[in-house]
């Protein structure tokens, strides 16, 4: 059974059909790419998957559980985590705390215990710090732990966003244009990080990307979106050689 499955997903804004009859099936452990020209509806699909928008029709299934119409935080708890096209960090907070917010629901103690600093506060905080540092290390960010998140270099901010998403312990990771604004070196490094995350955590990753090199380099399967509809779907090389896709990207 596929980890993520959507059936006939659709949403309109006013008269505009932003996404129509969207079907996708992502297997566990897959690195799956979602591509398409600007305005094709890619980010809208992410927003539908994470409950930012409620679909007008269709269903979203994660591991067989129906998530359609659920709220963002419940979807997060069910196991979908994401990053954002325009980076959304907790800018005034330290890098370490950004990850600790991601760990929030897995390391509970009450507000009361926190204010009085009861034993559980010390115990859980210690565990949280250790876990957060572990994640920062995975992304090579440990030396920045004390930095304010907004003072990080751009590439590191993207990585921190992924680290924060991973902290929620997801089953599925959604990456929205992770390479946007990066130079070729940073992109190459990012590709390795993504592959590493997949291998180390046996993570399933769905990513939106414009950088064809990155997509061709790491994605096993692709879905191409155009004007809110699926234009092509299948193995990466197959899809990239599809004449319809070439037309959509380069014009006829």
């Amino acid at each position, binding site marked *: 059974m596929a980890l993520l499955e959507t059936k006939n997903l659709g949403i309109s804004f006013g008269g505009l059909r932003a996404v129509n009859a969207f079907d996708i099936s992502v297997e566990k452990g897959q690195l799956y790419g979602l591509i398409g020209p600007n305005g094709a509806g890619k980010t809208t699909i992410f*927003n539908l998957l994470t409950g*930012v928008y409620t679909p007008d029709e269709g269903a979203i299934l994660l591991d067989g559980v129906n998530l359609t119409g659920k709220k963002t935080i419940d979807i997060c708890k069910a196991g979908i985590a994401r990053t954002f096209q325009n980076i959304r960090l907790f800018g005034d907070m330290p890098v370490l705390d950004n990850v600790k917010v991601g760990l929030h629901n897995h390391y509970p103690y009450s507000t009361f215990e926190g204010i009085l600093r009861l034993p559980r506060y010390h115990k859980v905080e210690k565990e949280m710090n250790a876990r957060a540092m572990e994640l920062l290390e995975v992304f090579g960010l440990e030396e920045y732990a004390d930095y304010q998140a907004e003072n990080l270099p751009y590439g590191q901010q993207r990585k921190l966003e992924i680290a924060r998403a991973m902290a929620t312990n997801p089953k599925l990771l959604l990456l929205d244009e992770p390479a946007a604004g990066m130079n070729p070196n940073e992109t190459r490094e990012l590709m390795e990080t993504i592959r590493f995350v997949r291998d180390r955590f046996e993570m399933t990753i769905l990513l939106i990307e414009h950088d064809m090199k990155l997509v061709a380099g790491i994605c096993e399967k692709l879905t191409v979106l155009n004007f809110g509809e699926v234009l092509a779907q299948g193995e990466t090389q197959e899809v990239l050689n599809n004449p319809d896709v070439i037309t959509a990207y380069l014009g006829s």
Partner: protein
Amino acid sequence: MSFVAHLINGISLGSVYALIALGYTMVYGIAKMLNFAHGDVIMIGGYVVFVTASGLGINPLAAIIVSMAACTVLGVTIERVAYRPLRGASPLAVLITAIGVSYLLQNVALLVFGSDTKAFSNVVTLPNLELFGGQLIIKSVTIVTVIVSIIIMVGLTFFVRKTKIGRAMTAVSEDQGAAQLMGINVNGTIAVTFAIGSSLAAVAGVLLCSAYPSLTPYTGSMPGIKAFVAAVFGGIGSIPGAFIGGILLGVIENLSKAYISSQLADAIVFSILIIVLLVKPTGLLGRKVLEKV
């Protein structure tokens, strides 16, 4: 008949709120700041008329024009000295500065005019309107207030929609950066907005003091807050919204005073504001702004 009288008084008070609210809403819409000192500009406008008309014996109409000119200069000066240096700073910093300006104006008035209440003589000397054989008397100042505020509201709407400066204001309110790139003088446009808002404040001050003839350095404070509530009520940034919000506020306040409790009138006004905002978080005519994810 007394209900009609209360209603008319409410509309009259509401028209004053509407005039003040127009100033609030324009400045908020364009400069994106709460000009807390706006109410105190009204008070200054009142004092200028008091000094020129009652003190120097100038014709009331001329006194109003002097007052409008004085308030315009005052408004533009405040903007230039206190607010413009903070363009681009946190909105909270601008808000606190505006509060500082409000204190400043109150204390200047206190020093110059003293804390005693000045009896303001009505500048509207037309005869009152008597209806139903004298059963219902509508004061001339009421009629003038309502008419003036309607004219100003319509005029402003026209000005913003049709003139070049008005369209520049709309552009600046949408996106300051983009407006600047399109060659609009953002600072100049904001200064014009302050000039208009402040000259309206002078008119509001005169009408307020004519209807409620007592003038102290704190006269503008509460009407200023109420007018701000009216602007939010109608949907802040919207000119017709400010007008409707002002009228409604005045009517609700006067009817509550007459029929429920004069002490609780403010509480009732504020409760209705809260209910409106909960049902329609951007006010009656406000636009909804969606955050892009």
